[in-house]
């Protein structure tokens, strides 16, 4: 297997591993740009994964699965909104609570309903989002360079993968080219400006938080019924936090968010590939280095060694008019 094939293989893996990060980080982008910190991304993703797998198993339809995943994730978003917007509670605390509740609930319900150690039953092919072979993938496969890239990296992914890459320019467009986006960015910087412009800060922030829930619904669904064929206990396994790291790494901007997620996905894919192989002169590189690398990179960024990351000014602070 030559280097090019290896590269293609790693890139294919990178794409698959980045998708949940992209959806989730974009979710965080909408929420945090509106001034609501969201460390409950992890929990929402997990809850959505469980809901989608359960619904897809019961109905046999991935679409019902997706809808349920989104629905449950939205419900968690509403809780976060209720706590941090309506009740002006601490957003971090609310996020922590959501992560706990989601991890616990999915395990408890999964165990009680399916008795498979918290797993949901495996899904048949048509209850999942299967791979989509793009036109000409097989024909082009043998064309040097472009062929394998097209056939193995670009083609053959499932619908949600393509949606994730579509969501990036769409998010950009929404944020920078629509009224909603303008207001959303404004409310994360100075909610007073939005309020005095006659716009409801509360409703605007709720919408942002709901968009976040909507997108987490996709990432959870992807995990459970596109990438895998069942829900597994704690299957988000910290991806929500990596997405958060990617969001910071990208300085809260949509296209860099995608690039950061791809980078972190690549690190993961590369770690898988490097596992058990030894590098000449160094020996086997411990997988733990790759696992820690996204976080280390983000901290390096935060240390100001590679630019600086300034969060939205009103981020994390509830909008309080009257003491």
């Amino acid at each position, binding site marked *: 297997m030559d280097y090019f094939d290896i590269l293609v293989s790693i890139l294919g893996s990178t794409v698959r591993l980045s998708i949940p990060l992209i959806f989730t980080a974009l979710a965080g982008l909408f929420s945090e740009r509106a001034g609501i910190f969201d460390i409950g991304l992890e929990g929402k993703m997990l809850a959505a994964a469980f809901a989608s797998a359960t619904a897809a198993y019961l109905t046999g339809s991935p679409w019902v699965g997706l809808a349920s995943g989104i629905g449950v994730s939205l419900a968690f978003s509403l809780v976060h909104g209720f706590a941090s917007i309506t009740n002006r509670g601490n957003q971090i605390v609310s996020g922590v609570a959501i992560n706990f509740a989601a991890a616990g609930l999915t395990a408890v319900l999964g*165990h009680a309903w399916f008795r498979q150690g918290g797993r949901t039953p495996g899904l048949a092919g048509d209850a999942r989002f299967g791979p989509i072979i793009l036109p000409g993938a097989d024909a082009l496969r043998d064309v040097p360079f472009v062929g394998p890239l097209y056939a193995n990296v670009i083609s053959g992914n499932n619908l949600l993968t393509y949606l994730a890459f579509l969501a990036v320019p769409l998010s950009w467009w929404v944020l920078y080219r629509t009224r909603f986006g303008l207001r959303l960015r404004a409310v994360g910087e100075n909610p007073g400006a939005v309020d005095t412009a006659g716009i409801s800060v509360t409703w605007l922030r709720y919408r942002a938080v709901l968009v976040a829930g909507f997108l987490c619904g996709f990432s959870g669904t992807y995990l459970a019924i596109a990438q895998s064929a069942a829900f597994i206990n704690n299957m988000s396994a910290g991806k929500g936090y990596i997405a958060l790291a990617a969001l910071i790494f990208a300085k809260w901007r949509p296209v860099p968010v995608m690039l950061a997620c791809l980078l972190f996905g690549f690190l993961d894919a590369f770690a*898988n590939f490097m596992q058990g192989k030894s590098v000449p002169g160094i020996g086997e590189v411990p997988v733990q280095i790759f696992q820690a690398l996204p976080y280390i990179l983000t901290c390096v960024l935060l240390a100001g060694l590679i630019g600086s990351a300034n969060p939205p000014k009103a981020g994390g602070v509830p909008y309080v008019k009257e003491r």
Partner: protein
Amino acid sequence: ADVKPALVYGTGGKFDKSFNEAAYAGAEKFKAETGIDYRDFEPTGDTQGEQAIRNFASKGYNPVVAVSFAWTSAIEKVAAEFPDTKFVIVDSVVDLPNVRSVVYKEEEGSYLVGILAGMASKTGKVGFVGGMDIPLIRKFECGYEQGARAANPSIEVLQNMTGTTGAAWNDPVRGGELTKNQIDQGADVIYAAAGATGLGVLQTAADNGKLSIGVDSNQNYLHPGSVLTSMVKRVDLAVYNAYSDAKGDKFSAGVQALGVKEDGVAYALDEHNAKLVTDEMKAAVEKAKADIIAGTIKVHDYMSDNSCPK
């Protein structure tokens, strides 16, 4: 004698379609035959095993079977506290007078499925995806590699481990990714010895039209036509025997090593994979089995020297 059997699973959950489910099947069989009910417990984390085992012992359950090496130190502790209770630990050895340790010669079973893999592979590359990187799993891999090489001396065996902690048993996503890597590198038969992670391996192989090999329970039915065979580890026997030995006052402590000869490990053949295993393959694997029983083939045990002959 009166028995009040109890069973503590590994952390994968009772219905993991694999290791724990096999243990469950053994207990169910005992219940069906004798009408004696049993209590079981599914710990969902490492810290709960010890408490559950102790709970059973202190509530008078006897014998208490703990499947999974993860409960080794728990059994060491609790068995010392309850010298009158009989304990069984599966996949690990605890040297106490009231503990029976059941270990399997996984290298032998893996050798058999390795032969099938070597013969079924068209690319000359087969894969192995392990769960947690521990000597026990290396033992699976080593036996598999020996078998595959016996079938095809020029075969290349790709191998990956899912992780280094308990979470590696429950990570089908990474299992699937590792499988995809191996497929990309040309492997067309992949053996999963990874608990629930293996479900991802089997799934990915099926999704990509490749063959896979299941483990512990007979997993052939999960993806009919795609699972070449399963390396069956008769954990059910360990459980069943523990209960019925205790009932018949035949319970003995000490180490039981179950291999091909004892029918403790085997390869699975049923209607789901009948089409995949040719007569020629069947003949070869049956011969190997006979040779192992006869002692003419000696499969190297990785754990005997922590290395695998190349």
